[in-house]
Every structure is written in C-alpha cells, then in structure tokens.
C-alpha cells in the first residue's frame, strides 16, 4: 500500500477568523504502482491533499501513511520527501541553475551523493523526460521553450528517484502537442521505474487516457472514485459539481436525454464511434 488516509482533515489557520477546513474526513487508499488521476475544480482540496503526501502539510486530525511513514509532526520528513517527489504547478519557475544539467543534479547533490552519481542520475532523468542530453545539458534552462523547461523541472524531481511521483497540473499552459508528449513520457516513466504516480488535473480526458483510477474531489472530500469509465458514466453528477465533462461524454448524455439508449462511459472518439454504431444497429433490427 503506497498511501492510506483515514478521516484525514485539514483546517487552515485554526482558531482564527480565517479558519477554513480544506479537507474533511478524506478516506483513500492508493496501491503501489498505481496511476491515479486526481480531479476537482479549484478550491476542491486537491492541492491541500497532495501537500500532505510529502509532509508539507500535516493532518489536523485523522491519519495518513505514505510509503510506510506516518505523516505527523514527528515524522522523518527528510526520508518521506526522498520517497515522495512533488512537482508543483508551473515548476519551471523554480529552475535556477546556470545549466540544465546542474539544475537537475542539484537535488541528488543535496542528498549528499558524490558528484559523479548526481550527474549520472541527472542524465538518466533528462533522458526519461525525452530531452536530448547533448542538446540541452550545457544550456541555460532559461533559453529553452516552455515545454522543455517544464520537462527539465520534472527531471529535477525524478533525479531524486522517488517511489511516489506527484504532479500538480503538469500540462497546464502547454500546447496540445507538448501536452500529449508529456503525458506519454509520464506513462513510460511509470512503466520503467515502477513508481506510484498521482496526476492532478482539470482535464478528465487527459488523465483518463493514462490513469488506472480517478479520484474526484469536491468541497474537501472525495466525491467519487473508480476507473475512468466508471467515473465518466456519472457525467451528470460531475457537471453538477462544476467539473467540465469531456465533449464526447456530454454528447452521449445529451443523446440519452433524447431517449437514445447509448453508453455514456466513452473515453475517446473510437469508443464514441462504436457506441453510436451499436445504437444505430439496434434501431435497424427493431424496424
């Protein structure tokens, strides 16, 4: 078991006028090696939740165990953060070194690894995010394109060789091509490194393509969870909590409202095509 939360509650500024409960009785289990898509609109508690996973925040009440470490005020945070890598939103804002290689090697070097090992880890991590080592390693990270900078920043976390990798909206602001490429790299990294992957996203379509399971948050609690297919089939409820259901799901729901008996759990164009063919075939045999 990678992550287990039991009645996890987090209150910001308790006892003050700004007191706000961001998480309320969250119960969840994430297995080793799973890819989880964490979905919810702004303010639903996603970011607060993932900040608990590497001990940036501690539960106000309830319990959280991550990779065998109980996250409390007394936890060994250094150890926890080695196991759990957290990639923030717009991580490229955190690049600072003179060269790409130095930036990615910074983390392992800080762990006290010898220079050689740090550089080796950095090189492996850059390759993992699909960057050509010779082309980028000696350049300033600030000369790169937005998509490349994003990947350098992710490589910096990968170089720490975490067992759990958490990314907060990794594709925000990228163009469709860079978005697809990045998701593809994440999928491959997951396979090769056999880590647990948690991807926070606004875009259900995007995470549905890679995630084993989706967790949907609303108002600080888990609203629903299941395979992408199970979650998509509850499109109406998702809309009600302000989530944008993918256009094809919207289409299937609209067809259902017209009285058409059609599957609503389609994940992509090919599945929508199949669902519509089946509906039409059914109609022809009825006639």
């Amino acid at each position: 078991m990678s992550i287990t939360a039991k009645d996890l509650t987090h209150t910001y500024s308790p006892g003050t006028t700004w007191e706000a409960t961001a998480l309320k009785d969250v119960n969840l289990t994430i297995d080793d090696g799973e890819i989880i898509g964490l979905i919810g609109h702004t303010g639903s508690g996603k970011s607060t939740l993932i900040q608990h996973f590497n001990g940036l925040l501690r539960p106000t009440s309830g319990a959280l165990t991550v990779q065998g470490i109980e996250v409390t005020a007394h936890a060994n945070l250094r150890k926890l953060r080695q196991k759990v890598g957290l990639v923030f939103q717009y991580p490229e804002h955190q690049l600072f070194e003179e060269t790409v290689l130095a930036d990615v090697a910074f983390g392992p070097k800080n762990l006290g690894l010898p220079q050689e090992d740090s550089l080796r880890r950095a090189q492996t991590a850059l390759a993992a995010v699909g960057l050509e080592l010779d082309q980028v390693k000696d350049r300033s990270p600030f000369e790169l394109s937005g998509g490349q900078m994003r990947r350098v920043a992710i490589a910096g976390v990968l170089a720490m060789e975490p067992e759990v990798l958490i990314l907060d909206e990794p594709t925000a602001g990228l163009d469709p091509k860079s978005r697809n490429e990045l998701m593809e790299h994440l999928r491959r990294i997951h396979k090769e490194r056999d880590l647990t992957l948690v991807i926070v996203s606004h875009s259900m379509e995007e995470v549905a393509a890679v995630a084993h399971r989706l967790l949907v948050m609303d108002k600080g609690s888990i609203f629903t969870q299941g395979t992408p297919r199970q979650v998509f089939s509850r499109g109406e409820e998702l809309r009600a909590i302000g989530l944008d259901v993918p256009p094809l799901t919207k289409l299937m729901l609209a067809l259902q409202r017209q009285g058409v008996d059609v599957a609503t759990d389609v994940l992509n164009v090919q599945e929508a095509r199949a669902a519509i063919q089946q509906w039409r075939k059914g109609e022809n045999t009825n006639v």
Partner: protein
Amino acid sequence: MIKVENVSYYYQAGDEKRIQALKDVDMTIEEGEFVAIIGHNGSGKSTLAKLFNGLLIPQEGRVLVQGQATNDEDQYWSIRQQVGMVFQNPDNQLIATVVEEDVAFGPENLGLPSEEILERVEQSLSQVDMLAFRRHAPHLLSGGQKQRIAIAGILAMRPKCLVLDEPTAMLDPRGRREVLETVRRLNREDGMTVLWITHHMDEAVHAHRVLVMEGGSVVLQGTPRQVFRQSQQLQQLNLDVPAVTRLGQVLAQDGYSLPQDILTVEEMVKALCR
C-alpha cells in the same frame, strides 16, 4: 480596424543569429469581428499579438490600427488606448490591493476627472459581471475572476479592440467558461473587436473566423466550419480538431450521412437524431 501588411518580424534583428518569428503576414481584422488565432508554441501567435498594439514594431511591412501605423511614435498612446491586451497570467496583470483601484489605474493615468474614473470603473466591472466584488482583494479571487478584473482594467481605457493571448491557459474549466462567455458577450453586445489566441479548439469554435499559424505564417483561415473540416491538415500541424467534429468525420467514413463540419455537441445531437 486592424491591417497587417506584409509583415515580417525578427528577434535579435541586428544579429547574425536572428530568428524570424513572422514571415510575410497579411491580414485584415474588421471592426466587430471575433477572430481566433490558433497554432502550436513557436508558431508566431504571441509575436503577432504584440504587433497589434505596437508592443513590437515589425522590421518589415507595417501594421495599421484605424489607419494609424504602429511605427509612428506620435500614435503610440492613441493606439494602445484603442487596442488593449490581456495576457495569460492574471497574477502578473493585477497591481492594486482592491479590485476597483486596480481597474481605476488606467483611467487615472489618463488624468481623467474622478467622477469619470468612477463611472468607467463601475461600467467596466459590470461589463465583466464583477461589480459585486469591487471592494474585494484581487489575490483572494479565483483565476477566472482575476482574469475578468484584468479585462475590466482594459475596458476602463475604452478600447475598440481586445487582444487576448491565451487568456484561459492558466484557468480551470469554470474559469475558462467565465472568461470566454464574458468576452463573447462584449463582442456580441458592445461590438468589441476581439482577437483570441488559444490552444483550445473548443474555444476557437465560437469565433467568426479562425486563423491557423505555423512557422510564422497564416497557413489556413476561414470560418470555424471551413477550418475544422481540414482535419488532416490540422493534424499535420500538430493541432487538434474538436472531438465532436472528429467523431462526425469517422462516422462519415462508416457510411453515416452526417455533415462534415459539426462543431458542437448540440449540432451533433441534432444531426444524429434527425
């Protein structure tokens, strides 16, 4: 409204390693039009956007705003007042600690009398449906609300044209909807000319005209229907076609007689349930 005549733009122009960002771009934006500009990163979209109000001056060709050339230094202020820009990150565009002070910043700088400033602030905030938040602190608002405040700040300058460079890229779905609806309403009801730069094809669907950029040139343009029919060409440019349009196209391959230019869920439902 805006004429772009045979414009080329280079970064590091004096340098041997100059980079050509725009290549012989020609276009006319009519008053009251809603034009979406799409293209992947590095296609020249943002460079083009910065030409419209003279933030960048082309080295070749010229840009005219209401007949005034942007390279005419005497016209800088007049042009920037007519063409307002909204950028991706709302946090970088808000400066004051109270919403109405932020919106008042532009007109204050114009040296307008305070009654006029007040009137403009109120009008601009109601145009983006944020008047109720006038005394709030911008940093406590949602991304979509912040972006609407940024737009109100531009509206207070009474521009004729809004250029929005990926205004929804950093917003969640709800914020995206809010901002898109606000700008569509400004276009529809107030006749605001809009240039909307985006990666999201679902947003481009609502434009009167779509321009597709690649390698610094406009490679495809037309109504959303005309443009999204060219799904093969768009795919070659690494651009998506809206999912519903793509579904219509694959179903047509299966022998269903469906229009090839379906853009929205509503249209698809109608076509299928005929």
